[in-house]
């Protein structure tokens, strides 16, 4: 099977999984106790008014009709209107998405940029102080609840030393770039100041995780015969480590990272809660609390879909970097 067909097949599977996600999310409303009308209708609403509201929202139709209606609307990109504010759910979700994506991307980039060299150093200087420091850090990193880490960072860096803002997002990256286009670099500085603590909070677990994976993977690879053979042909050590051993180390790391995207988003939810970061995480918590079903469903679908899409991308990347993959 060619790479293209492989990806196509994975994409089809992905569509299937997304359909599953949508269905689960849709059904969630019906297993949840409490009539959504109660949250929408005014206090003294008469039964007639309740029925009218139900009719307006299509809640009086049979379940399967509602389901197919929902699917049809979803395909058109329509996630309905917020029960609470009456605004378009999709608009609201996509307005929040950049903040979360920004946070997740920065955290991931920082995590990758720090952890891979750390893991390599740790593996190549085994039993040296650098290794002990890296393993201690990574053990602590995977064992620390990130919300607590965030609070401690605020306590020390914001409350005590006043180096970073304690919360919020002053402006988005795109806005900061807009300032830069006008010749004002301060936008980027402000942006960086606001995103630093949330990104550290979210990224630490992943930095630690990838450091551990890289270290054990590198140790594994460096012990393999081909590394010795590569050294034997006179290649510089940096080439042996990075081009050969690290490349093979990263192949499984990429897969694990794809699977960990879920915990990245989960981590983003709580990080956003800690830093009042206006992203999807705070939106999903608020809408769950308010039983704002169109928003809850929309958020979960967007999160589930991005998970599936990213994993397809990871699979494709995996297939690309790993010639041994059998496309089946």
């Amino acid at each position, binding site marked *: 099977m060619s790479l293209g067909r492989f990806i196509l097949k994975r994409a089809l599977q992905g569509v299937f999984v997304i359909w599953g996600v949508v269905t689960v999310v849709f059904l969630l409303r019906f297993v949840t106790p409490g009539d959504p009308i109660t949250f929408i*209708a005014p206090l003294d609403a008469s039964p007639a008014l309740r029925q009218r509201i139900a009719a307006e929202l299509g809640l009086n139709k049979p379940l399967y009709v509602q389901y197919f209606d929902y699917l049809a609307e979803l395909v058109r990109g329509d996630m309905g209107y917020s029960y609470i*504010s009456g605004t378009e759910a999709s608009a609201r979700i996509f307005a929040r998405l950049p903040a979360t994506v920004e946070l997740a991307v920065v955290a991931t980039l920082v995590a990758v940029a720090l952890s891979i060299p750390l893991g390599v150093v740790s593996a190549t200087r085994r039993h040296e102080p650098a290794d002990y420091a890296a393993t201690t850090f990574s053990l602590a990193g995977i064992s620390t609840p990130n919300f607590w880490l965030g609070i401690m960072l605020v306590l020390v860096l914001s409350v005590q030393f006043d180096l970073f803002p304690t919360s919020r997002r002053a402006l988005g990256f795109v806005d900061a770039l807009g300032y830069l286009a006008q010749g004002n670099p301060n936008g980027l500085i402000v942006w960086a100041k606001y995103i630093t603590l949330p990104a550290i909070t979210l990224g630490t677990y992943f930095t630690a995780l990838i450091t551990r994976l890289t270290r054990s993977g590198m140790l594994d690879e460096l012990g393999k015969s081909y590394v010795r053979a590569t050294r034997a042909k006179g290649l510089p050590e940096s080439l042996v480590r990075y081009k050969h051993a690290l490349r093979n180390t990263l192949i499984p790391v990429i897969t694990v990272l794809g699977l960990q995207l879920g915990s990245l988003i989960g981590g983003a939810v709580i990080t956003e809660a800690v830093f009042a970061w206006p992203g999807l995480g705070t939106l999903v918590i608020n809408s769950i609390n*308010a039983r704002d079903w169109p928003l809850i469903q929309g958020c979960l679908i967007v999160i589930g879909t991005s998970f599936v899409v990213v994993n397809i991308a990871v699979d494709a990347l995996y297939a690309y970097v790993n010639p041994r993959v059998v496309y089946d």
Partner: protein
Amino acid sequence: MADDRQSRISRRRYLSLVGSAAAAASVAGCAGGDEIQTPSGDGNGGGNGSGNGGEFAVTITQGQLDSGLDPHDHRETTTDIVLMQAYEGTLDRDAEGKVVPSLAEEYEQVDDTTLRLFVRDGVKFHSGDELTPEDVAFSINRIVNNDVGGLASPQKDQLAGVTEATVVDGERAVDVVSDGVNPVLVSLLASYGDVMQKSWVEGRQKNQINSEVNGTGPFKLERYTEDEEVVYTKFEEYWRDPAAVDRVTLNAAAESSTRVNQLVSGETDIVVNVPPQEVGRINNQGNARVEAVPSTRIIYNAMRYDVEPFSSREFRRAMNYAIDLETIVKEVLSDFADATSQPTLEGFVGYNPDTDIYPYDPDEAERLVEESGHAGASIELHTPVGRYLKDLEIAQAVVGYINELPNVDATVNQRDFGTLAGELTTGSIEDKPHFYLIGWGNETFDASQTLIPLLTSEGVLTSWSNEEFDDLVAQSNAETDENAREQLLRQANQVAHDEAPWIFLNRQYSVYGASGRIEWTPRRDESIKAYSISPK
């Protein structure tokens, strides 16, 4: 819609952001914050035409933001504060709570059921159109009539008794008709009933009404980023003098410490709900101050009369004796509250000055529990978290005291406010938790707006039913003589004290942090009007 948003973000967003950043930079000027400085270094440069070096911009940070911008489709103080910058009612209140004219210049009681409002001339909506009596009548009807304005408004009971509003032929006036004697109508109209423009509402979809603003107030909407911020600019054609503030930004931070940090670092000018432990940071910072005022909000623990053990009067009274309210006020609330003895707050019409706060008497409490026959009861107190000043701590303290009784076991159940409020507002007592902490703000300064909805048998939010109490309230509601009405309300409050449908807790203080660069005095009714802010 999504496309609109995108294109709006593209160019206008940059321009407006530079404008707001410039405003923030002027804040940073005094706070030494980390805001954006333009390369030229003057801190005021920006692309926005209206922005200039002298702009006076103010930011107000609440615990949460609006739930949409339709002034008739919400019931929260937070949304109200967002919208009161742009929408006005027919009547208003001054800082002391006295009723003053607003869009209605005058009012007149035409007969027992009809109040005539004379609509002010020369008032413009932000759309540029003139205010008409039709708009006023439409707005009131939109609230009280589910078939008007495409909305079943949750504010219907805030205009209790009103059946309709009609335009008076040949006059610039509107008749507001009630279903009977309505002694509190003026008071209600002074607090509720924002006026919208009929044609504007009718030409818009629900989601547009929720994301655009067209009022008569001193500020018009510049930018609305849902859940993030609402930015208003001064409405130059306001019927009174234009505001001293050029730009108002409202945003939110759920954590009190976060709000205080924002104030201290100069990111905002007014923050709400400053907990006592954060007061020191504001005062020590030197560039901001703490403003406190007794609010119109009472915090209480409701006990449902229809379930054991709370069906027992003895048990309910025992709960009041069990807690050391004075200590809670002193230690948990650092005296930023007053202890209460009845549902009505001091200074309100109908407040009974002769009832005493329940003393702390655990022995009496234990005895009453035994007497009630519910010794060994397990009770669970549902409480919202972060909604009221120290709500969770108060709940935990109450439960802590109750647990000290050897014959009752109590626990706290932390609830999300939205979910809890949902259960409380279904209109059916069965949906409510048996025992819950909640706060009630009554901006009318009249006991009836507390007693009727919360404690009468038919009240939409009630947890109690008592014939004697119902009778007293009903009589007061039909009583046109003010003194006689006040006496009836006092008696009702005495009954409530004795029967103890609640654990009476505290009157909350509104504790604000305000930056040193603004002149502003907090109000008892919890409203924050940017119109009343001026530079120092």
